[in-house]
């Protein structure tokens, strides 16, 4: 089974000042698949996720080493703004802007130069439909996004990311702030999005990873508290017959 590679990371290290937060990560992420990143808290999984859209650069003192390629292109040679158009992100806590629902979704396309109201309408509707939110909000698109429930806010954030037409969507524990029903809806949504996007999702919830992903990467910390990739493979293999003892301990709940 040979899948086309979307993102490739080679010998990647990340430092906060003198502290090494990620150590020698090498991984290939396949196109149009859902890849889950799991591991105990503090193992650097969110930091690793934020590598793909270079959000770590917003934190002063961060330094990286190694190569990260998207479609064979070095992302560190790209303009970060252009990169972030192609690699969307959904954050841990829903973070809609304090604007109307419509303006939240239209924000990206507008910023990228689309002014025509009719086309914006189309993009907003399509994005909200794709994020499975349209039916709930179609009658009050001008209402403040902050009036929505947490689950709705998170789906709005997904719609906002979709409206930019990215190729990859990064999700940083997108359901951790939500109740179980809202979580389930997000998981279903992710399944439908997979056809058109490459999805990388960080989760602390192993059932979620097992349920919703095609591939799973397991991260943990070494003795110096640097995060490293322990094991990576098809989700079913990793959960049923892990090849590393540490993975087995983790998924059977012996630590973390």
């Amino acid at each position, binding site marked *: 089974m040979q899948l086309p590679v979307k993102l490739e990371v080679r010998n990647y290290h990340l430092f906060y000042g003198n502290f090494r937060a990620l150590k020698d990560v090498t991984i290939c992420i396949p196109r149009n698949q859902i890849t889950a990143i799991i591991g105990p808290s503090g193992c650097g999984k969110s930091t690793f996720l934020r590598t793909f*859209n270079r*959000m770590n650069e*917003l934190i*002063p003192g961060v330094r990286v080493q190694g190569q990260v390629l998207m479609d064979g292109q070095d992302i560190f040679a790209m303009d970060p*703004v*252009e*990169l*972030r*158009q*192609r690699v*969307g*992100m959904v*954050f841990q*806590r829903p*973070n*809609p*802007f*304090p*604007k109307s629902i419509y303006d939240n979704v239209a*924000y*990206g396309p*507008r*910023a*990228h130069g689309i002014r025509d109201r009719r086309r914006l309408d189309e993009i907003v509707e399509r994005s909200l439909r794709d994020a499975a939110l349209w039916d709930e909000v179609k009658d009050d698109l001008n209402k403040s996004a902050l009036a929505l429930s947490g689950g709705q806010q998170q789906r709005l*954030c997904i719609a*906002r*990311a979709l409206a*930019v037409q*990215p190729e990859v969507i990064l999700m940083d524990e997108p359901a951790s702030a939500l109740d179980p029903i809202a979580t389930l809806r997000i998981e279903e949504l992710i399944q439908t999005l997979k056809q058109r996007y490459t999805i990388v999702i960080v989760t602390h919830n192993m059932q979620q990873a097992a349920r919703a992903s095609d591939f799973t990467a397991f991260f943990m910390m070494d003795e110096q508290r640097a995060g490293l990739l322990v094991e990576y493979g098809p989700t079913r293999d990793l959960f049923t017959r892990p090849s590393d003892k540490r993975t087995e301990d983790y998924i059977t709940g012996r630590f973390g």
Partner: protein
Amino acid sequence: MPVRYIVDRVAKYVLLFSALLSILIVFLIGLFTLREGEPAFRQIGLEHLLGGTVWRPEQDSFGLLAMIIGSVLVTFGALALGLPLALGCAILLAEVAPDNVRAVIRPAVELLAGIPSVIYGLFGMVVLVPLIRGIDVPGNTGFGLLSASVVLAVMILPTITNIAEDAIRAVPREYKEGALALGVTHWQAIVGVILPAARSGIVAAVILGVGRALGETMAMIMVIGNSVVFPHPLTANPLTIFLSQARTLTGNIAVEINYATGLHESALFATGVVLFVLVMLVNSSARLLMRARTG
């Protein structure tokens, strides 16, 4: 009862009294300015006081309109010149400048706030006024609204910059990250998300700057000319109104209080009441905005 409990109780009430002193002073200020101004309000009437265009104490004519317009125009001028400067600094400090640059500009802005207003006035008289006198318009003395606006623009900068910077910094980081993750430039994120989210705080900063501008006294006296004329354009060009001399409400009080008697003195206290009410309205609207933001 042990002594320490008595001490505790006594201390508590002494402290409470001190805490209430401020409101007592506010009350006394209101009482005294109103009491002294009352004859003027009674004999001249609010209408003539606020609407009268002639201030000639020796003829018992006490119209404040020229001074009200003077104060409003100089505040407007200061905002026109000072807002881009103050808000530009605020955005620069909150979003763009690296820490080491911030470590230079921030203390500089704080020092600007500490410089005595007579120094600004002196600098204005010696440097700015001769410069503006160079603008070739008949009747232009250099002293006037333009000089006063420039001086005031620098004086309100620290007020506006500090509060606006705090407001911008208080915008949750998630908003900025959310915007950048959509592939917009930093500037687009500032204009489209960060500034709108900080809007009420920024507006409050500007309003407090207005309050500061309306209250400034000595620097205004020194550069605005103080003649009790209705500000008017010197030529057909309406912009030359800023070359006109003027007088502010604050200046009116300071220049004349030490020798005024009788109704004249009372009219100056009435000027104080007008100024007080104006500044209180401005400041409390800013406070309401800030409270809405935090609450």
